[in-house]
């Protein structure tokens, strides 16, 4: 930072601090003067919205933690106390509970945005990978958070998901006992999930910092997917995009507020208002909506694969499902190397654009399948959609550049903008 140029601040206090620790200069360089492509559309708001949601979750979470009791005897009641007795507790909890959903909506849009405009390609591969790490950490955090209120879905969701690890050959059961700290999901499990649920958001914060740092090295991508070539292609981040982000945030907050105040339990499962009962499984276990596509992939693997002509099971349907589910997320790490087309933006890739929308439709279909009981038609649809999910990544994306005739790229962002693109 010492090599960075310092700004002359008029305020003597800021100037004094900046001379000794140039935080303000750094902020100015990275968030005010920062040259940003001038052609962003509203999809570029979702990064800032993600950060906003992370902060919202941490702030509301810290306050919930003041009133929450992580013990199987008290957890459910302490959450009910937050809802009924703690001043404004209902609001803090509804923000946190629905905030998790909002966080995932925003991050999923952010990810699909990256896929559409090829933001994962050179030179932003590491930026993308850090993003996938954030997604994984968010999934772990949300999963453990959902266990905390200790309702029926908390308990049985935790049971089903931790049991996935028992599919690992040889050491599976040992791992599950270790995860539980006992012989079933119980008090030790609740306690460690609480500790980790408190910790992981701060890890996410750290990784987000690296994510943004990497962004500020490569610079932002843009809807045309072409590089910034001259200062004419950019505008300073402030006031242009600070203003646009504030406007986007306002719209988003209206949506968020409608959910919090009018539909606070719409996205949740009513069964989670029944205290956890280890003796009775609810008839239909479903995870929160943001896990449904992955849950559908997990359940799509319904046959055992045998060593030919024997009864020896090579991959049980249980293990197969687990491999597919983790594979579905892990594949995202390799996206920059699976899609080798030199053109980033789908705007100039007519074929990719079609396949992108089919992929979006597939993901939504998987989400629907995940919410259905696993019988009849949804099972078959889920299997087709799962197969397509993998075909998209492993076959379509690598093959496309061979067959696709991309459209001519504009010479520069400013030229395209002047032509009204």
């Amino acid at each position, binding site marked *: 930072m010492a090599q960075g140029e310092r700004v002359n601040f008029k305020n003597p206090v800021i100037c004094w601090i900046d001379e000794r620790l140039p935080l303000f200069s750094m902020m100015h360089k990275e968030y005010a003067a920062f040259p940003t492509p001038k052609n962003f559309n509203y999809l570029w708001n979702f990064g800032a919205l993600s950060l906003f949601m992370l902060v919202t979750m941490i702030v509301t979470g810290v306050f919930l933690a003041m009133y929450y009791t992580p013990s199987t005897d008290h957890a459910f009641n302490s959450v009910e106390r937050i809802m009924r007795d703690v001043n404004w507790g209902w609001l803090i909890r509804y923000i946190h509970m629905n905030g998790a959903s909002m966080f995932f909506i925003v991050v999923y849009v952010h990810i699909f945005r990256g896929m559409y405009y090829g933001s994962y390609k050179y030179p932003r591969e590491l930026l993308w990978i850090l993003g996938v790490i954030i997604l994984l950490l968010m999934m772990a955090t949300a999963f453990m958070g959902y266990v905390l209120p200790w309702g029926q879905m908390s308990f*049985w969701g935790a*049971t*089903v998901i*931790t*049991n*996935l690890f028992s599919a690992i050959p040889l050491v599976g059961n040992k791992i599950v*006992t*270790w*995860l*539980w*700290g*006992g*012989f*079933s*999901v*119980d008090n*030790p499990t609740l306690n*460690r999930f609480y500790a980790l649920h408190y910790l992981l958001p701060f890890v996410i914060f750290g990784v987000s910092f690296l994510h943004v740092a990497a962004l500020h090295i490569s610079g932002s991508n843009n809807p045309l997917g072409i590089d910034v070539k001259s200062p004419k292609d950019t505008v300073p981040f402030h006031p242009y995009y600070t203003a646009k982000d504030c406007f986007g945030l306002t719209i988003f907050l209206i949506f968020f507020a409608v959910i919090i105040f009018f539909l606070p339990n719409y996205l949740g499962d009513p069964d989670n208002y029944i205290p956890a009962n*280890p*003796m*009775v*499984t609810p*008839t*239909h*276990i479903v995870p929160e909506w943001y896990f449904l596509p992955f849950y559908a992939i997990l*359940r799509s693997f*319904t046959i*055992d694969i045998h060593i030919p002509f024997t009864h020896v*099971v090579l991959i*049980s*349907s*249980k293990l197969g499902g687990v491999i597919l589910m983790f594979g579905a997320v892990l594949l995202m790490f390799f996206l920059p190397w699976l899609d080798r087309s030199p053109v980033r933006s789908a705007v100039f890739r007519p074929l990719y654009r079609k396949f992108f929308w089919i992929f979006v439709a597939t993901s939504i279909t998987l989400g629907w399948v995940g919410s259905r009981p*696993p*019988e009849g038609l949804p099972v078959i649809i889920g299997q087709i959609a799962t197969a397509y999910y993998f075909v998209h990544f492993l076959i379509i994306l690598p093959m496309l550049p061979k067959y696709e005739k991309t459209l001519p790229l504009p010479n520069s962002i400013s030229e395209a903008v002047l032509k009204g693109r």
Partner: protein
Amino acid sequence: MAHPPSSTSDQTCGHCQQGDEENDSSRRDFLTLAAGAMAGVGTIVTAYPLIQSMNPAADVLAMATTEVDLSAVKEGQSLTVVWRGKPVFIRNRTQAEIDEARAVPMNDLKDPQTDQARVANSKFGGKDLPEWLVMVGVCTHLGCVPLGQKPTDPHGEFDGWFCPCHGSQYDSSGRIRKGPAPKNLEIPPYQFTDATHIKIG
């Protein structure tokens, strides 16, 4: 230092230093390696108790046995008790159920095991008690509690237990017959302490 400022001695000196550097660098490599190895060992030694602390604690292990009175369970009835935080299914089976379980050919089973082996611990005073089937009531697929303990519950196609989560079906010996579960319902360690009492765990 008494080095004559001649070019030769400079060269020697340079040589000498180079030699020293080589020595130094191999020594340094060794030190780096040794320090690295120590740090690695140290990390493992530190991580071990932390990771191990997450395994079941002594009190959790101490709660690991449950005593059950079976005298009230009539033929054809079932009882669910809690052992290690999990349901244990105890069933006083009818002769028909036992016969049905014993008639199944091993080839039909996904996880082959005879009914005799599954109730091997049900004996007291030299007398076999094959009617008593004792199993952990946790589906071996993903851990749901199968239905079938109550007469009004669904029992699946094999007169046993039916898991509502993903449709696994267990027979009257608790063996997996259909659906995604890979294994038979687990038999916990148990023994009869007298003709009507068992100790699980």
